[in-house]
Protein backbone atom coordinates (compact mmCIF):
# COMPACT_ATOMS: atom_id res chain seq x y z
CA UNK A 1 0.00 0.00 0.00
CA UNK A 2 2.78 2.36 0.94
CA UNK A 3 4.58 1.47 -2.27
CA UNK A 4 1.42 2.09 -4.31
CA UNK A 5 0.80 5.48 -2.71
CA UNK A 6 4.43 6.42 -3.12
CA UNK A 7 4.30 5.47 -6.80
CA UNK A 8 1.09 7.42 -7.37
CA UNK A 9 2.47 10.48 -5.61
CA UNK A 10 5.65 10.20 -7.60
CA UNK A 11 3.94 10.00 -10.97
CA UNK A 12 0.97 12.26 -10.16
CA UNK A 13 2.68 15.39 -11.55
CA UNK A 14 3.19 13.54 -14.82
CA UNK A 15 -0.52 12.71 -14.99
CA UNK A 16 -1.36 16.30 -14.13
CA UNK A 17 0.86 17.60 -16.92
CA UNK A 18 -0.83 15.25 -19.39
CA UNK A 19 -4.23 16.44 -18.22
CA UNK A 20 -3.23 20.09 -18.54
CA UNK A 21 -1.77 19.42 -21.96
CA UNK A 22 -4.99 17.72 -23.07
CA UNK A 23 -6.99 20.72 -21.86
CA UNK A 24 -4.59 23.04 -23.66
CA UNK A 25 -5.09 21.05 -26.86
CA UNK A 26 -8.88 21.17 -26.49
CA UNK A 27 -8.77 24.95 -25.96
CA UNK A 28 -6.65 25.30 -29.10
CA UNK A 29 -8.96 23.00 -31.04
CA UNK A 30 -11.92 25.08 -29.92
CA UNK A 31 -10.16 28.23 -31.13
CA UNK A 32 -9.83 26.75 -34.62
CA UNK A 33 -13.59 26.74 -35.08
CA UNK A 34 -14.04 30.49 -34.83
CA UNK A 35 -15.12 32.84 -37.58
CA UNK A 36 -11.96 34.94 -37.46
CA UNK A 37 -9.29 32.59 -38.66
CA UNK A 38 -5.65 33.62 -38.80
CA UNK A 39 -4.69 32.12 -42.15
CA UNK A 40 -1.88 34.57 -42.83
CA UNK A 41 -0.26 33.85 -39.49
CA UNK A 42 -0.49 30.13 -40.20
CA UNK A 43 1.17 30.59 -43.60
CA UNK A 44 3.91 32.65 -41.94
CA UNK A 45 4.56 29.84 -39.49
CA UNK A 46 4.61 27.26 -42.30
CA UNK A 47 7.13 29.37 -44.16
CA UNK A 48 9.31 29.65 -41.05
CA UNK A 49 9.22 25.90 -40.55
CA UNK A 50 10.26 25.29 -44.15
CA UNK A 51 13.02 27.89 -44.21
CA UNK A 52 14.77 26.45 -41.15
Amino acid at each position, binding site marked *: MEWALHTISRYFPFVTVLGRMARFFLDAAA*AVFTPKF*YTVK*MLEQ*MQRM*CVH
Partner: protein
Amino acid sequence: MIPVLFVLGPMGAVVAMESLKVFSIFGASGMTSSLLSVALFRELAPVLVSVMVASQTGAEIAAELGAMRVREQIDAMEVMSVDPFKALIVPRLLAGLFITPVLTLVGNFTGILGGYIIAVMVKGSNGGAYIGNLFVWLNMMDVMGGVIKAAIFGLLIMVISCYHGFYAHGGAAGVGQATNDSVVHSVVSILVMNYFLTTAFFGFNI
Protein backbone atom coordinates in the same frame (compact mmCIF):
# COMPACT_ATOMS: atom_id res chain seq x y z
CA MET B 1 14.29 21.95 -44.61
CA ILE B 2 18.07 21.90 -45.12
CA PRO B 3 18.74 19.95 -41.87
CA VAL B 4 16.09 17.43 -42.93
CA LEU B 5 17.98 16.87 -46.17
CA PHE B 6 21.25 16.51 -44.30
CA VAL B 7 19.74 13.96 -41.90
CA LEU B 8 17.75 11.77 -44.29
CA GLY B 9 20.35 11.69 -47.09
CA PRO B 10 23.12 10.11 -45.00
CA MET B 11 20.57 7.89 -43.24
CA GLY B 12 19.44 6.46 -46.57
CA ALA B 13 23.06 6.00 -47.57
CA VAL B 14 23.86 4.09 -44.37
CA VAL B 15 20.82 1.81 -44.66
CA ALA B 16 21.69 1.12 -48.30
CA MET B 17 25.31 0.37 -47.40
CA GLU B 18 24.46 -2.06 -44.60
CA SER B 19 21.61 -3.81 -46.42
CA LEU B 20 23.71 -4.12 -49.58
CA LYS B 21 26.31 -6.02 -47.56
CA VAL B 22 23.74 -8.55 -46.34
CA PHE B 23 21.78 -8.85 -49.59
CA SER B 24 25.00 -9.43 -51.56
CA ILE B 25 25.60 -12.62 -49.57
CA PHE B 26 22.35 -14.02 -50.97
CA GLY B 27 22.88 -12.59 -54.45
CA ALA B 28 19.97 -10.19 -54.02
CA SER B 29 21.76 -6.86 -53.99
CA GLY B 30 19.07 -5.47 -56.30
CA MET B 31 16.57 -5.67 -53.44
CA THR B 32 18.46 -3.05 -51.44
CA SER B 33 16.20 -0.28 -52.68
CA SER B 34 13.06 -2.26 -51.72
CA LEU B 35 14.20 -2.49 -48.11
CA LEU B 36 15.30 1.14 -48.12
CA SER B 37 12.02 2.47 -49.48
CA VAL B 38 9.90 0.51 -47.00
CA ALA B 39 12.12 1.51 -44.07
CA LEU B 40 12.13 5.16 -45.12
CA PHE B 41 8.47 5.59 -45.93
CA ARG B 42 7.20 3.68 -42.91
CA GLU B 43 9.59 4.58 -40.12
CA LEU B 44 12.79 6.50 -40.71
CA ALA B 45 11.48 9.57 -42.49
CA PRO B 46 8.46 10.31 -40.24
CA VAL B 47 10.44 9.79 -37.04
CA LEU B 48 13.65 11.56 -38.01
CA VAL B 49 11.86 14.48 -39.64
CA SER B 50 9.67 14.86 -36.56
CA VAL B 51 12.71 14.79 -34.29
CA MET B 52 14.29 17.50 -36.43
CA VAL B 53 11.09 19.58 -36.33
CA ALA B 54 10.95 19.14 -32.55
CA SER B 55 14.55 20.16 -32.07
CA GLN B 56 14.36 23.18 -34.39
CA THR B 57 10.85 24.55 -34.62
CA GLY B 58 9.58 23.17 -31.31
CA ALA B 59 12.47 24.66 -29.38
CA GLU B 60 12.09 27.97 -31.18
CA ILE B 61 8.36 28.13 -30.52
CA ALA B 62 8.77 27.28 -26.84
CA ALA B 63 11.46 29.94 -26.46
CA GLU B 64 9.46 32.53 -28.36
CA LEU B 65 6.22 31.96 -26.46
CA GLY B 66 8.12 31.66 -23.18
CA ALA B 67 9.81 35.01 -23.76
CA MET B 68 6.43 36.56 -24.61
CA ARG B 69 4.95 35.14 -21.41
CA VAL B 70 7.86 36.31 -19.25
CA ARG B 71 7.74 39.80 -20.76
CA GLU B 72 3.97 39.83 -20.13
CA GLN B 73 3.17 40.31 -23.82
CA ILE B 74 0.61 37.49 -23.66
CA ASP B 75 -1.01 39.13 -20.65
CA ALA B 76 -1.14 42.39 -22.62
CA MET B 77 -2.89 40.60 -25.48
CA GLU B 78 -5.50 39.27 -23.07
CA VAL B 79 -5.99 42.78 -21.67
CA MET B 80 -6.59 44.03 -25.23
CA SER B 81 -9.15 41.20 -25.62
CA VAL B 82 -7.06 39.46 -28.26
CA ASP B 83 -7.37 35.72 -27.73
CA PRO B 84 -3.78 34.40 -27.51
CA PHE B 85 -4.97 30.95 -28.48
CA LYS B 86 -6.25 32.22 -31.80
CA ALA B 87 -3.35 34.59 -32.41
CA LEU B 88 -0.42 32.47 -31.20
CA ILE B 89 -1.32 28.83 -30.69
CA VAL B 90 -3.71 27.82 -33.48
CA PRO B 91 -1.53 29.04 -36.40
CA ARG B 92 1.44 27.12 -35.01
CA LEU B 93 -0.58 23.95 -34.42
CA LEU B 94 -2.00 23.96 -37.93
CA ALA B 95 1.36 24.83 -39.47
CA GLY B 96 2.97 21.86 -37.72
CA LEU B 97 0.10 19.62 -38.78
CA PHE B 98 0.50 20.53 -42.44
CA ILE B 99 4.24 21.02 -42.81
CA THR B 100 5.62 17.90 -41.12
CA PRO B 101 4.10 15.52 -43.74
CA VAL B 102 5.49 17.70 -46.52
CA LEU B 103 8.95 17.62 -44.98
CA THR B 104 8.57 13.85 -44.56
CA LEU B 105 7.88 13.38 -48.26
CA VAL B 106 10.93 15.51 -49.09
CA GLY B 107 12.96 13.42 -46.63
CA ASN B 108 11.77 10.19 -48.27
CA PHE B 109 13.14 11.18 -51.63
CA THR B 110 16.34 12.54 -50.10
CA GLY B 111 16.93 9.19 -48.38
CA ILE B 112 16.31 7.29 -51.60
CA LEU B 113 18.73 9.60 -53.39
CA GLY B 114 21.35 9.07 -50.67
CA GLY B 115 20.89 5.31 -51.00
CA TYR B 116 21.25 5.56 -54.78
CA ILE B 117 24.51 7.47 -54.47
CA ILE B 118 26.02 4.87 -52.17
CA ALA B 119 24.55 1.67 -53.67
CA VAL B 120 24.95 2.52 -57.35
CA MET B 121 27.61 5.19 -57.67
CA VAL B 122 29.95 4.12 -54.89
CA LYS B 123 29.36 0.39 -54.45
CA GLY B 124 28.66 -0.31 -58.13
CA SER B 125 25.26 -1.95 -57.73
CA ASN B 126 22.96 -2.11 -60.77
CA GLY B 127 21.20 1.24 -61.17
CA GLY B 128 18.30 -0.19 -63.18
CA ALA B 129 17.64 -2.82 -60.52
CA TYR B 130 17.78 -0.11 -57.83
CA ILE B 131 15.15 1.98 -59.58
CA GLY B 132 13.09 -1.00 -60.69
CA ASN B 133 12.85 -2.57 -57.24
CA LEU B 134 12.22 0.69 -55.44
CA PHE B 135 8.45 0.27 -55.20
CA VAL B 136 8.17 -3.52 -55.34
CA TRP B 137 7.39 -3.99 -51.64
CA LEU B 138 5.95 -0.53 -51.11
CA ASN B 139 2.20 -0.02 -51.28
CA MET B 140 -0.05 2.98 -50.83
CA MET B 141 -0.76 2.10 -47.20
CA ASP B 142 2.94 2.46 -46.39
CA VAL B 143 3.09 5.91 -47.96
CA MET B 144 -0.15 7.11 -46.41
CA GLY B 145 0.70 5.57 -43.04
CA GLY B 146 3.99 7.46 -42.96
CA VAL B 147 2.31 10.72 -43.95
CA ILE B 148 -0.44 10.33 -41.33
CA LYS B 149 2.15 9.48 -38.69
CA ALA B 150 4.10 12.60 -39.59
CA ALA B 151 0.96 14.74 -39.32
CA ILE B 152 0.18 13.32 -35.87
CA PHE B 153 3.78 13.85 -34.77
CA GLY B 154 3.69 17.43 -36.05
CA LEU B 155 0.56 18.17 -34.08
CA LEU B 156 2.02 16.49 -30.99
CA ILE B 157 5.23 18.53 -31.22
CA MET B 158 3.34 21.78 -31.55
CA VAL B 159 0.99 21.02 -28.65
CA ILE B 160 3.91 20.17 -26.35
CA SER B 161 6.08 23.09 -27.46
CA CYS B 162 3.27 25.64 -27.30
CA TYR B 163 2.17 24.33 -23.90
CA HIS B 164 5.62 24.62 -22.38
CA GLY B 165 6.21 28.04 -23.89
CA PHE B 166 2.76 29.38 -23.08
CA TYR B 167 2.99 28.46 -19.41
CA ALA B 168 6.68 29.31 -18.92
CA HIS B 169 7.51 31.12 -15.71
CA GLY B 170 10.56 32.15 -13.74
CA GLY B 171 12.32 34.64 -15.98
CA ALA B 172 15.13 33.77 -18.35
CA ALA B 173 15.86 30.51 -16.57
CA GLY B 174 12.21 29.53 -16.94
CA VAL B 175 12.34 30.14 -20.68
CA GLY B 176 15.41 27.91 -20.93
CA GLN B 177 13.70 25.23 -18.86
CA ALA B 178 10.58 25.42 -21.05
CA THR B 179 12.67 25.06 -24.19
CA ASN B 180 14.51 22.08 -22.74
CA ASP B 181 11.29 20.43 -21.60
CA SER B 182 9.63 20.95 -24.96
CA VAL B 183 12.43 19.20 -26.87
CA VAL B 184 12.79 16.31 -24.40
CA HIS B 185 9.06 15.69 -24.06
CA SER B 186 8.50 16.00 -27.81
CA VAL B 187 11.20 13.50 -28.74
CA VAL B 188 10.11 10.99 -26.08
CA SER B 189 6.47 11.37 -27.10
CA ILE B 190 7.32 10.90 -30.77
CA LEU B 191 9.19 7.66 -30.14
CA VAL B 192 6.56 6.24 -27.79
CA MET B 193 3.69 7.28 -30.07
CA ASN B 194 5.56 5.82 -33.06
CA TYR B 195 5.34 2.36 -31.53
CA PHE B 196 1.58 2.58 -31.08
CA LEU B 197 0.96 4.13 -34.50
CA THR B 198 3.15 1.55 -36.22
CA THR B 199 1.24 -1.20 -34.44
CA ALA B 200 -2.05 0.36 -35.47
CA PHE B 201 -1.12 0.96 -39.10
CA PHE B 202 1.23 -1.90 -39.94
CA GLY B 203 1.18 -4.33 -37.02
CA PHE B 204 -1.71 -6.40 -38.33
CA ASN B 205 -0.70 -6.38 -41.99
CA ILE B 206 3.03 -7.02 -42.29
